[in-house]
């Protein structure tokens, strides 16, 4: 069967923190592999440091690269909604990944991460493992809607469980910032029972700060997103890192692949795919361990 050639544009945020780095890696891998596998497919990949630039990238893909499909992981939902909608109006296939647009029915395919789920699973883990309640500190990400959704869900999940958040600051999904913030939390509070770092990069920073302070009141640090070093520690039964919550950066690869299928297979794949956030514990850690990934 002779297939028409097609160009698929992929627009993602730049690798400004660990998770985004992993996502960049998977996007590049997918583009490379699919490009080799299907001769008729061309890919255009661009990474943007802010929403405005992402809109520029998308405009360029449409105006100058003549894309037939767009896979977009919006930097933020609101600002990308209009521009992506106008892409969709031009009969270009649109796949939205991770962050939904603020209007319904623009995209043909939606591959979503579950941000509230991410917070909820983490919160439930705390409730389960701290039956008597306790005092915890929270490291938040970069101030964004995503972070808000996660933290709100987390707060709802621990509501009424006797777990009290005694400190919450932005660690910006960054090891260094998390290290600093955690150091100061440790100076400020004589007793901290556990830490929700909400991201594995931040967990690394927080753990280093706890190590340095030599404090043994902290029972555990829960990160998130499934960084390989952390999964390894879960696998090895590290007491400080008993679990992790997934938020797989590989979802971008899934989305690109599914989009590509539209142009090589006969059956178009559309609809909504939600990649839930799972709890990783020592029992199932092996399934989530990808030693070759950079993240």
């Amino acid at each position, binding site marked *: 069967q002779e297939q028409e050639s097609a160009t698929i544009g992929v627009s993602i945020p730049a690798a400004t923190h660990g998770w985004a780095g992993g996502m960049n890696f998977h996007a590049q891998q997918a583009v490379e592999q699919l490009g080799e596998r299907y001769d008729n497919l061309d890919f255009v990949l661009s990474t943007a440091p802010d929403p405005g630039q992402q809109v520029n990238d998308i405009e360029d893909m449409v105006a100058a690269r003549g894309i037939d499909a767009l896979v977009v992981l919006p930097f*933020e939902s609101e600002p990308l909604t209009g521009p992506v909608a106008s892409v969709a109006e031009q009969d270009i296939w649109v796949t939205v990944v991770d962050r939904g647009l603020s209007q319904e029915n623009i995209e043909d395919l939606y591959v979503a991460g579950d941000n509230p789920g991410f917070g909820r699973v983490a919160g439930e883990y705390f409730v389960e493992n701290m039956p008597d309640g306790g005092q915890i500190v929270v490291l938040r990400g970069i101030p964004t809607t995503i972070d808000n959704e996660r933290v709100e869900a987390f707060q709802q999940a621990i509501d009424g469980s006797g777990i009290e958040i005694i400190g919450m600051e932005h660690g910006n999904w960054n090891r260094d910032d998390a290290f600093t913030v955690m150091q100061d939390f440790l100076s400020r509070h004589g007793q901290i029972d556990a830490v929700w770092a909400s991201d594995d990069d931040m967990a690394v920073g927080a753990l280093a700060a706890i190590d340095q302070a030599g404090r043994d009141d902290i029972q555990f640090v829960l990160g998130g997103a499934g960084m390989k070093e952390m999964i390894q520690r879960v696998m090895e039964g590290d007491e400080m890192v008993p679990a992790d919550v997934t938020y797989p950066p590989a979802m971008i690869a899934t989305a690109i692949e599914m989009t590509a299928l539209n142009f090589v297979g006969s059956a178009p794949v559309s609809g909504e795919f939600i990649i839930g956030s799972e709890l990783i514990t020592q029992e199932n850690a092996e399934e989530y361990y990808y030693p070759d990934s950079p993240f």
Partner: protein
Amino acid sequence: MSAADTTTQTGGGRRLDFHVLGPVLALIALIVLGTLINTNFLSPGNITNVLARSAFIGIIAVGMTFVITAGGLDLSVGSMAAFIAGLMIIVMNATMSVMGVGLMTVIVGILTALVAGLAAGAINGLLITRGRIEAFIVTLGTMGIYRSLVTWLADGGTLSLDFDLRTFYGPVYYGGILGVTWPIIVFALVAIVGEIAMRQTAFGRHCAAIGSNDQVARYSAVHVDRVRTATYVLLGLLVGVATIMYVPRLGSASSSTGLLWELEAIAAVIIGGTVLKGGFGRVWGTVIGVLILSLIGNILNLTDVVSPYLNGAIQGVIIILAVVMQRGTNVSR
């Protein structure tokens, strides 16, 4: 200082012509490169895109040219734009619930942006001239303040303009006359008026005099503080104007709106041949600087470079080369 010396050394009128050509040559080189890389590069669609998106930074950079020429600096413009955008959205949403979607609501929004820009510029200017605090410190401070305020207004998330309002307001970014969109028209107007103000009015001369030697300017009965403050107010106002174009484009504001615009605007000004330490400014050069920066981004999007991770490196190299070209033609004479 060093700038003055360079001029002294390079000397006479004819060399200056070559110095002038520098950024233009860099721009031409980029256009040729773009055309070679992608046949769509010169398509009306792409040209419109590039020009329209240059408009935000461009309008701001024109104001920045005056500030820098008068020996100042403003690091707060990006955050200021984000803050004004946030404020504008809140005000417009609120107005809409009273007045409905319509011209009045948009006008209220536009006025909000202009007044806020004016006020923000005046605050910077007065702190610098009356407070006698280094411009770098004042605007670093206000940069943090505005960035925080918009994050706080948005509660850490995104402020968005009501959807209907956005559709109504959209043409301010996407519409235009005779195929030329509004941002391009406004940018062109600002640039032309700016160029005239810099070269043909007493204000422009006073800016250069102050940047060159403020003591002499003071002795010559130039109202140094007033002119300096005016440059910041003008810049604030232009940030407001840029925001008026920006809001209909994305319809939202968040903590990442306008990130690093200050750096881009300053870079455009310097690439255009204005002297960072003040005393000499060139608005048309700034316009070319802005276009160079936009084109670099555009060209990178038109080609599949080795790795997207290296975009920044290529950008860096081209920025340096653009300026080397300026110096290069200068020396080769």
